[in-house]
């Protein structure tokens, strides 16, 4: 996967989050403040302007650009969380012109590490972490079984989907949803869902790569 593939991935993320902005905001209404879709769309709309200038950037610089752009434009919880995630991901692929399966796993590991370092959430607190940690675990398993980069991405995406769904019965203890106590049960977490979209876009992008 080279800097063309990463750019295709990020472009796909921008598209998917834009198409699903309303859906994500709807998820954020019953257990949040109805802005997650708007927030993510604002951040990746800012990215869209920069994509043309990113064709000549190496992968690390591309991811760094995403990270700092999200920090500067998204706000809310998701801005610092995803911003830090992309910045950490960038750090572990510095200097690389192409990513092998192992590099992608390292990238995802750093990505999730960034979210956890910033947000201090653990599994089961009804946050994006509940989609991201299973995704990395699946990616690592796939790698151990010698899977291709495309398979690694695909397995991560599937795990993220299951992880996002799994947030529905959870009682939130982090983020706004935690204010609702028992009433947070029965709703899918918006951030876990945007994480799912980001990883699905990766899988699709690498499949066609």
């Amino acid at each position: 996967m080279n800097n063309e593939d990463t750019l295709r991935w990020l472009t796909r993320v921008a598209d998917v989050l834009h198409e699903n902005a309303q859906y994500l905001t709807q998820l954020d209404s019953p257990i949040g403040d109805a802005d997650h879709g708007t927030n993510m769309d604002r951040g990746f709309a800012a990215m869209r302007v920069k994509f043309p200038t990113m064709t000549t950037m190496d992968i690390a610089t591309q991811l760094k650009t995403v990270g700092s752009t999200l920090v500067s434009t998204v706000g809310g919880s998701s801005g610092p969380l995803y911003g830090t995630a992309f910045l950490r991901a960038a750090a572990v692929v510095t200097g690389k012109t192409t990513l092998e399966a192992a590099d992608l796993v390292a990238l995802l590991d750093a990505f999730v590490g960034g979210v956890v370092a910033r947000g201090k959430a653990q599994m089961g607190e009804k946050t994006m972490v509940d989609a991201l940690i299973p995704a990395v675990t699946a990616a690592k398993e796939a790698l151990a079984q010698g899977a291709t980069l495309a398979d690694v991405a695909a397995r991560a995406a599937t795990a993220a989907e299951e992880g996002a769904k799994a947030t529905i019965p959870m009682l939130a203890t982090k983020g706004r949803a935690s204010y609702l106590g028992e009433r947070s049960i029965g709703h899918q977490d918006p951030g876990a869902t945007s994480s799912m979209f980001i990883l699905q876009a990766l899988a699709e992008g690498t499949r066609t790569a």
Partner: protein
Amino acid sequence: MKKLINKPEDVVKESLAGMALAHADLITVDQESQIVVRKGAPVQGKVGVISGGGSGHEPMHGGFVGIGMLDAACPGAIFTSPVPDQMLAATKAVNGGAGVLHIVKNYTGDVLNFEMAAELAEADGIKVAAVVTNDDVAVQDSLYTTGRRGVGVTVLVEKIVGGLAETGAPLDAVVAIAKKVNAQGRSMGMALTSGTVPANGKPNFDIGDDEIEIGIGIHGEPGRRRIKIAPASQITEMLANPIIEDLGLKSGEQVLAFVNGMGGTPLIELYIVFEELSRILKGKNVTIARSLVGSYITSLDMAGASITLVRLDDELTKYWDAPVHTPALRWGR
């Protein structure tokens, strides 16, 4: 959705522009960095006091920028905490050499963005301290969760802290009084209706004509529980009693009582709540030594109210009484 707006995406900037025009003697708005700054800032030798958070809570925070309260405010998108760039710009704009206090409401987004801003400001050699408000008794306090929301007490913290900062007190003293007000303050709110985020165009939650939400925050989120509409006397009890209990108010103590409207509730109703609150406190022999009644920390056009009580001592009373001159709060000058 029916609102007096133009394009939803322009609401925050246009409203800030209007406020700047209406209060050009007190504030300037930097639309580029989207911050509200006290005229003549930075004040040399004075601790800069800033706050910020999502928009939709007007007059908080921009309406509290001026003399004797905030030196700057960072308004984010509606209900979305601002970005570190705004807090950094505000921190630089108000740094008079004595350091800068960040008053942060306890929401993950606000906390994380202010955190990143503080890191950046300190990298620039500016001394920054942050105080997080978390006064909402509707939320159980716990080490393992996000913890309580910062709501009504934030307004009172900003006033009292601003009063002390205006005297040229050092950063540690300003931090100390901010923590003290927060520690002595508790709040709880309720909603009759849901607010509508302009970008969404429909109410955040549906609620029946005979239902109300108890234990709401200020971001249009539903409350802890939904009940049938009740008389103001009972609703006031539901809000006041958990506060009094959690604060451990004792007979003979004095409080600052703040009855706040959520944006869509008129003053005539807020005074009824204040009357009920006075009755309840009188029954516990607690004296309302100071009071504030009005819509100061709102949730767009949500109808409802919140109650905040702060246990008063001479120090807090003194700086509450200190002169303040901002778009939304003014006395003593």
